[in-house]
C-alpha cells in the first residue's frame, strides 16, 4: 500500500537534489549554544572558497515542532539588518532532524553583560566606545520596529537573544534572534496565552503578563527592551528575582511582582487605570501592601547605579518601563527620542571601530550532563499533542531557573488542541497587509516559480 503514496521517480529525483547539512558544513565539536529547543553549532563551509562562519541550529527532537514551524515560517518572510537572517533550512530525512542555517554572530548581550559584570567585580574597567549602549538600544528598537510593523511579536526578548556581529561581516551589528516564540499577531486564532502559557523569561516579563493579561502585545516586547536597556546601563538585571518554585500554570508570580514594585514603586491607580481590569488584580490587592513600597522609585534605583535622573538615557528608560502598557512608548516613538539625537550619536557598528574587548564564543563540551538531561526532560515530544491537563506539570519544569542569570530555560509547548473560536474582529488596514512583502526575501535556491509565488501570495 505505502509504496503507492509517492511516485518512485519523484522520490529519487528529490533525493538526489537534496543537499545534506553534513556535506556542506564542518561543525563537529563546534557546539556553541544549547537552548531549550536546540543545539547551536558554529559551522564552516567545506567548500574552502567561502571562509565565513555560520551558525547551525539543530532543533531539539524530531520532526517539525510547533516552535520550529513558527521560527521557519516567520524568518522565511522577514528581512532586516537587525533581525537574524535565516539562510536556509535543511531537512534531514533519515534522522528526521531539522537544521536552520544562520549568519554567525560572535557576541550576544548575555555574554557582553556578563563580561562587564565580571570586570566591575574585579574593578577593572572595560574600554568601550561611549555610545555603545545607545547604539545597541537603537538597533534593537529598529529591529523590533520592523517586526512590529510587520505584525510580528517577538515575545521572548532577553539579552541571550540579542546577538551582535563580530569583526566581519557587518561588524558590530545587532541581530535579534530566536524567533521560536514569535508569532504573527494580525491573525490570532485564539488568545495567545492559551497557546504558550508561559513565555517570556520572568525577569523580562511585563507587569500586565504577571497580572494575567490574556493577550500579548507590542507593549510587552517594549517592556523587555526597557529591562535590557537598564541592564546594559548598570550590568545588573533590573528585575532580578529568585525563581525556584514556579509551581502553577498561573501567570501570576508574586516574587517577580514584588521585585518590580521594589524598583518601580507600587502602581498608583491614576498611573494605570486599567489595572483594575487585570484578571489577577484581586490577588494583587490581597497579597501586596502599597505602604511597603513608598520609598521605591525608578529614579532612586537608577541613581543608586549612577544613572542621573536628569539624563536623556534615564528619561527614555522611564518611558519604556511604564507600568501601564497603554502608556508605554512604541518602538517608533522611542527611535525619535532626544537621547538618540544627543552626542554621541548611535553608530551602525556598535563598537564604533574600536577594538572589541569581548572574548569569542567558546565551544561547549558534552560534559554538562545535567543540563542535557534537563533539556531532555523539558523538551516537548514534538509530534505529540499535549493534553490540557498535563500543562501544569510541564510548566513546573520551567521553574528550575538558575540564579546565575543563565539564559533562562522555559518550556516551549505545542498548544493544546484548540477548538474553533470567535473570529477576531480586530481587523487591520489593507494597506498594512500590502506592506508586508515589500522586500523580496533572500533565500538560497529561490527558483523561478518560488519568486513568482512570493509576489502572488500577497
Amino acid at each position, binding site marked *: 500500500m505505502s509504496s503507492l503514496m509517492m511516485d518512485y521517480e519523484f522520490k529519487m529525483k528529490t533525493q538526489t537534489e537534496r543537499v545534506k547539512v553534513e556535506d556542506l558544513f564542518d561543525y563537529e565539536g563546534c557546539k556553541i549554544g544549547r537552548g531549550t529547543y536546540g543545539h547551536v553549532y558554529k559551522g564552516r563551509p567545506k567548500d574552502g572558497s567561502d571562509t565565513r562562519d555560520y551558525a547551525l541550529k539543530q532543533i531539539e527532537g524530531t520532526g517539525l515542532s510547533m516552535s520550529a514551524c513558527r521560527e521557519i515560517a516567520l524568518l522565511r518572510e522577514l528581512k532586516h539588518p537587525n533581525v537574524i537572517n535565516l539562510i536556509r533550512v535543511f531537512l534531514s530525512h533519515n534522522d528526521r532532524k531539522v537544521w536552520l542555517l544562520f549568519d554567525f554572530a560572535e557576541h550576544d548581550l548575555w555574554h557582553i553583560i556578563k563580561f562587564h559584570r565580571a570586570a566591575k567585580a574585579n574593578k577593572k574597567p572595560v574600554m568601550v566606545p561611549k555610545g555603545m549602549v545607545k547604539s545597541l538600544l537603537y538597533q534593537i528598537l529598529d529591529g523590533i520596529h520592523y517586526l512590529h510593523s510587520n505584525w510580528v511579536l517577538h515575545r521572548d526578548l532577553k539579552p541571550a537573544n540579542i546577538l551582535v556581529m563580530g569583526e566581519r561581516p557587518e561588524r558590530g551589528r545587532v541581530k535579534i534572534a530566536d524567533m521560536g516564540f514569535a508569532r504573527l499577531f494580525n491573525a490570532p486564532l485564539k488568545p495567545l496565552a492559551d497557546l504558550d502559557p508561559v513565555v517570556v523569561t520572568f525577569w523580562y516579563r511585563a507587569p500586565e503578563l504577571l497580572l494575567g493579561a490574556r493577550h500579548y502585545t507590542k507593549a510587552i516586547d517594549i517592556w523587555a527592551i526597557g529591562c535590557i536597556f537598564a541592564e546594559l546601563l548598570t550590568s545588573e538585571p533590573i528585575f532580578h528575582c529568585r525563581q525556584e518554585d514556579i509551581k502553577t500554570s498561573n501567570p501570576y508570580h508574586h516574587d517577580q511582582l514584588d521585585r518590580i514594585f521594589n524598583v518601580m514603586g507600587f502602581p498608583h491607580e491614576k498611573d494605570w487605570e486599567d489595572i483594575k481590569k487585570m484578571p489577577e488584580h484581586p490577588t494583587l490587592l490581597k497579597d501586596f501592601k502599597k505602604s511597603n513600597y513608598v520609598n521605591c522609585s525608578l529614579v532612586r534605583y537608577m541613581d543608586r547605579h549612577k544613572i542621573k535622573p536628569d539624563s536623556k538615557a534615564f528619561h527614555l528608560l522611564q518611558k519604556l518601563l511604564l507600568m501601564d502598557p497603554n502608556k508605554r512608548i512604541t518602538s517608533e516613538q522611542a527611535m525619535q527620542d532626544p537621547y538618540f539625537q544627543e552626542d554621541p550619536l548611535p553608530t551602525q557598528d556598535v563598537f564604533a571601530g574600536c577594538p572589541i574587548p569581548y572574548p569569542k564564543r567558546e565551544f561547549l563540551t558534552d560534559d554538562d550532563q545535567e543540563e542535557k538531561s534537563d533539556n531532555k526532560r523539558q523538551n516537548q515530544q514534538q509530534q505529540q499533542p499535549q493534553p490540557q491537563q498535563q500543562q501544569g506539570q510541564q510548566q513546573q519544569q520551567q521553574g528550575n531557573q538558575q540564579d546565575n542569570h543563565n539564559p533562562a530555560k522555559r518550556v516551549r509547548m*505545542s498548544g493544546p488542541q484548540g477548538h474553533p473560536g470567535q473570529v477576531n474582529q480586530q481587523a487591520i488596514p489593507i494597506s498594512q497587509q500590502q506592506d508586508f512583502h515589500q522586500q523580496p526575501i533572500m533565500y538560497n535556491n529561490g527558483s523561478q516559480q518560488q519568486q513568482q509565488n512570493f509576489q502572488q501570495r500577497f
Partner: protein
Amino acid sequence: MLHINCGRLKVIQTLGEHLKLRQQVIATATVYFKRFYARNSLKCIDPLLLAPTCIFLASKVEEFGVISNSRLITTCQTVIKNKFSYAYTQEFPYRTNHILECEFYLLENLDCCLIVYQPYRPLLQLVQDIGHEEQLLTLAWRIVNDSLRTDVSLLYPPYQIAIGCLQIACVILQKDHKAWFAELNVDIEKIQEIARYIINLFELWKTYDEKKEIQGLLSKMPKPKPAPQR
C-alpha cells in the same frame, strides 16, 4: 482539471470540518495543496496522502496547535468511508509515519514558505467599512470559502479576492454599494476577473453531479508509480 481539483479540495474541507478546524487553517492547507500540484504532477504524491499532510502542517503554522496523529488518521478513515466512498472504494491506506514523511517532502517543495495571506481579514475590514451588515458578511465569507476551490488564491492578492467576493455577495443580495466600490482604489479589471473565476465555479456546480462523475474522473487520473520490485 478543475473538476478534479474540486473533488480533491473537498476532501480537505471535509477533513477540516470533521477536525473542527478554523476556516483559516483549512484555507492555508488548501493553498499548500494547490501550490504543490501547481509545481508537481498529481502522480508525484497521492493527493489522498497530501491532503491530510497539508492540514497537519497548516494547523501548526496557523498556530491552531499540533493535531494528534491518531486523531488525524482516524478522521481520515471515517471521512473517506462515510463521505467519499463513491470515490474511494478502499480504506484510507496511510498511517502517521506516511504523513510525517510526506510533511518533509511538502516543506521542501514549498521551499519553507508557509505563511499564507487569506482574504478573510481584509473582508472583515471592508464589511466594517461599508457599515456592518451581518447578512453581507456571512454570504461574502462563504463565497471566500468557495473561492478556495478555484485558483484565485494562487493568482490574486487576498484583498482583491475579498473585494471580488464582496461584489458577488452584493449582487446576490441585490445591495447597491456601487458608490462605495467606486471609491476603492483598486484595479477593477482584476476584481472582475476574480468574480468571473468564482462565478464559473458556481455555474459548474449547477450542472455537475459530482458523485456520479468523480469515479470516472479518478480512473482517468495518472497514478503514482510504485518502486520497482526486486
